[in-house]
């Protein structure tokens, strides 16, 4: 089982400032990876590089063994979907229209949506518990609902990988939990996920692999209990913490000293 | 000698009408494409044959009652066609080429004048008289106009030229250069236009320039009689350095008499001459 996505010796700078250096990692099928790090450590940039939106200065991004810049955008979109924070719809579309946009990589220009498209979109809406919002305008729903709609759109792309950039920031605990449970169920379908987040504890619960970034470098990579040590976190976030396990469910618990 | 010259001139003037010669001279329905042409047609006594005029054909008063065919810069071609004229007479000093071309394409006979100075205007009267079938009347009107001009020229020829400033617009202050009817009239009336050598036909001029050039007479050419004129005269009164203002020689003349290519230019000339050289002894 080869890696779906490989990053090899990636260097990326922006305006002569080095944002990422020496990045090497693999994403395997069905793997859930958490990307952690303080602000400015390059998390969003890393995700954009994975999607081929940004081109690295040095190094290669390989999608299913082939360099990603050899793909055209539609083919990439069939494999990789991204849910980011910024989605400013200038003009009103309904929730179902938004989710159906996820079917774009599978439809040619003159064709209207067919039965398969509608089915996939329908299931995506059901999975994200947004089916009841189908006819509402994207502008009329709450931030949390909107996040789930965007996730539904990503699911409708039927990708092998979903990249998620800080999607839990706007959600209250109930929705955070829902989303993460949703992600767990997706994992069962064999979809890999890369989640960039600040929420260390939550990540620790659901990710099987963690990548800790500091100043553009991979500071640590491995299983959560390997990566999330007191030294690592205190050093990277420059803030003293205490790490232990929650006695009830044995999840990693982090307390600020 | 001069009479022979005049007769010779009037014959020579007929040349442009050659293309219209030999055609049926009874022209029943005429459309005038410019206010100046309207005046000319009435002067020739053929006002009753006019079936359509442009919006600003305001002289003589009867013309105002005629059907309107748009403005001379924007003719309403539909209306002209509907009126079914035998001939449309216009002037390149105003009518758009495209409008005229379309009229010709519609099969309407069109005659155009190109009056560049007052002599052209008088010649055009003669030409129009000819194509409308009354050549003798045309010559008569033209000759009498030429004589009136000549009389004035003689009267002022011995007098010293007076510096004149002609204002055709108030805000901004606009005058005329040598390429205009107004300038022709000022010269013939024994005056000299202080803005004669300006490069643009209707140049904007600053008050300072006017003060500097010390005109002895100021003519305000305008349609606005009464209150507005008083206002403008009061504005000039501020500049007592100007000889014209000092001597109270600021006058209003109806602009139609000075800028319209019609017989009334001669009336405008006579008015100007009286204002510029009152000492010449007018009847």
């Amino acid at each position, binding site marked *: 089982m080869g890696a779906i996505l490989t990053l090899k010796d990636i260097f990326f700078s922006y305006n002569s400032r080095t944002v990422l250096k020496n990045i090497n990692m693999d994403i395997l099928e069905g793997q859930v990876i958490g990307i952690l790090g303080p602000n400015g450590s390059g998390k969003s940039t890393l995700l*954009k590089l994975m*999607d081929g*939106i940004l081109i690295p200065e040095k190094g290669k991004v390989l999608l299913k063994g082939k360099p990603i810049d050899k793909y*055209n*955008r*539609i*083919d*990439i*979109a069939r494999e990789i*979907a*991204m849910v*980011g924070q*910024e*989605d*400013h*719809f*200038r*003009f*009103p*579309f*309904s929730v*179902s*229209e938004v989710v159906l*946009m*996820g079917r*774009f*990589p599978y439809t040619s*220009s*003159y064709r*209207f949506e067919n039965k398969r498209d*509608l089915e996939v979109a*329908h299931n995506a*809406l059901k999975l994200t518990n947004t089916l009841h919002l189908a006819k509402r305008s994207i*502008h009329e729903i709450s931030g949390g609902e909107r996040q789930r709609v965007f996730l539904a*759109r990503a699911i409708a*792309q039927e990708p092998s990988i979903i990249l998620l950039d800080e999607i839990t920031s706007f959600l209250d605990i109930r929705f955070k939990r829902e989303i993460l449970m949703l992600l767990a169920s997706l994992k069962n379908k064999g979809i890999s996920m890369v989640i960039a987040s600040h929420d260390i504890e939550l990540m620790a619960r659901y990710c099987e692999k963690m990548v800790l970034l500091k100043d553009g470098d991979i500071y640590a990579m491995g299983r959560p209990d390997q990566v999330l040590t007191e030294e690592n976190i205190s050093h990277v976030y420059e803030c003293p913490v205490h790490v232990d396990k929650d006695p009830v469910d044995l999840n990693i618990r982090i307390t600020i000293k | 000698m001069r009479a022979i010259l005049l007769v010779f001139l009037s014959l020579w003037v007929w040349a442009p009408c050659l293309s219209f010669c030999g055609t049926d001279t009874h022209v029943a329905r005429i459309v005038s494409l410019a206010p100046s042409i309207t005046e000319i047609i009435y002067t020739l006594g053929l006002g009753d044959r006019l079936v359509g005029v442009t*919006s600003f054909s305001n002289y003589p008063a009867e013309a105002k009652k005629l059907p*309107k*065919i748009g403005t001379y*810069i*924007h003719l*309403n*071609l*539909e*209306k002209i*066609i*509907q009126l*079914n004229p035998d001939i449309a007479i216009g002037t390149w*000093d105003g009518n*758009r*080429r*495209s409008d005229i*071309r*379309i009229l010709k*394409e*519609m099969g309407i006979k069109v005659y155009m004048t190109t009056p560049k100075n007052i002599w052209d205007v008088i010649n055009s009267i003669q030409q129009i008289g000819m194509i409308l079938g009354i050549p003798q009347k045309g010559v008569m009107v033209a000759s009498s106009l030429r004589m009136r001009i000549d009389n004035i020229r003689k009267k002022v020829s011995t007098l010293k030229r007076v510096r004149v400033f002609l204002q055709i617009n108030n805000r901004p202050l606009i005058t005329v250069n040598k390429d205009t009817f107004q300038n022709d009239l000022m010269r013939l009336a024994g005056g000299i236009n202080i803005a004669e050598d300006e490069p*643009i*036909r*209707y140049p*904007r001029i600053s008050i300072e320039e006017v003060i500097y050039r010390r005109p002895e007479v100021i003519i305000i050419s305008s349609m606005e009689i009464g209150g507005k004129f008083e206002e403008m005269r009061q504005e000039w009164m501020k500049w007592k350095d100007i000889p014209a203002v000092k001597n109270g020689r600021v006058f209003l003349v109806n602009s139609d008499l000075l800028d319209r290519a019609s017989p009334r230019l001669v009336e405008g000339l006579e008015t100007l001459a009286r204002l510029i050289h009152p000492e010449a002894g007018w009847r």
Partner: protein
Amino acid sequence: MIARPLSPAKVIYVSLGLFILLLMVMLFSLYKGAVNIRLVDMLNAILGKGNDPGSIRLILLKIRLPRILLAGAVGFILSLGGVVFQAILRNPLADPFILGVSSGSALGAITGIIMGLSYRTGIPTMAFCGAIFTIVLVIIIGKKGKEAETSNIILAGVIINAFFTAIIMFFIACSSNEKLHSMLSWLYGDLSQAYYAQFWIVFTVTICSFFILYLFSRHLNIITAGEEVALQLGVDVEKVKWISLIVVSLSVGLAVSFSGLIGFAGLIVPHICRMIWGSDHRILIPSASLGGAVFLIAADTFARTIIAPNELPVGVVTAAIGAPFFIYLLIHRGSRWEQF
């Protein structure tokens, strides 16, 4: 199961309905004019029956019909351009002139008027050259490497508009009366010189642009969500932007080189269509285009009949309708403007 948000049937019905409306407006405009024509006479003239008192046939076929057709074609492309630009620039206030095409072609036309060129060929050619020149200039200034960065492009367009407008004002200030009138009537839109060749040229270019841009309907839908999102979903954003910008600017530049500048048509009609049928470009593009044709024909007919035999410039009529419309929009939408 969720329903299809837009079916092909709906697109066809709406388009057909608007097309029929267009034909009706055209017929009505043929009937209306400075010269009153009885319906009976008009039908006889069209069908070629009976004698022709008052040259009705001439009036209808040589003066009114070419003008109506040209108004329709110009309105069509102005609205189409408005829709596409609003999507690409993600700005509900974008009109097809935003890249400076208006001032560029105006400058070309005014230069042509000063040079004394003919209205039939010389001036439209100069206007079109002006438009092309401006498009190239805006692209060169607004480009960042191979990318068409939208905010740069808008800025470049605004700057060039301002600069060319200053030059135009300079020319106007120095011009003589006769030329002044020609310049002003071009700047406000003047369809009175229309003839069939003009219509066919604009029509051909417009129809080609329509089909090219319709191909991008779904791309445009997604681009309105944001360029990065569009990239993620598989849209080749650069390609769509470049092609759209160039196709719209060229066809709009061509149309206004014949008609002069007519504002608001590319602004109002897209908005109204969006309010009625939604933002999906698969229906917005055909409805706004046909709506634009109807709108301009109606505005032009109004302009040439309301003070007959004199005429209002058609740009004045569209502005008189457009400005209050936008005030109304502002009051009703207010702070929700960015969400339209």
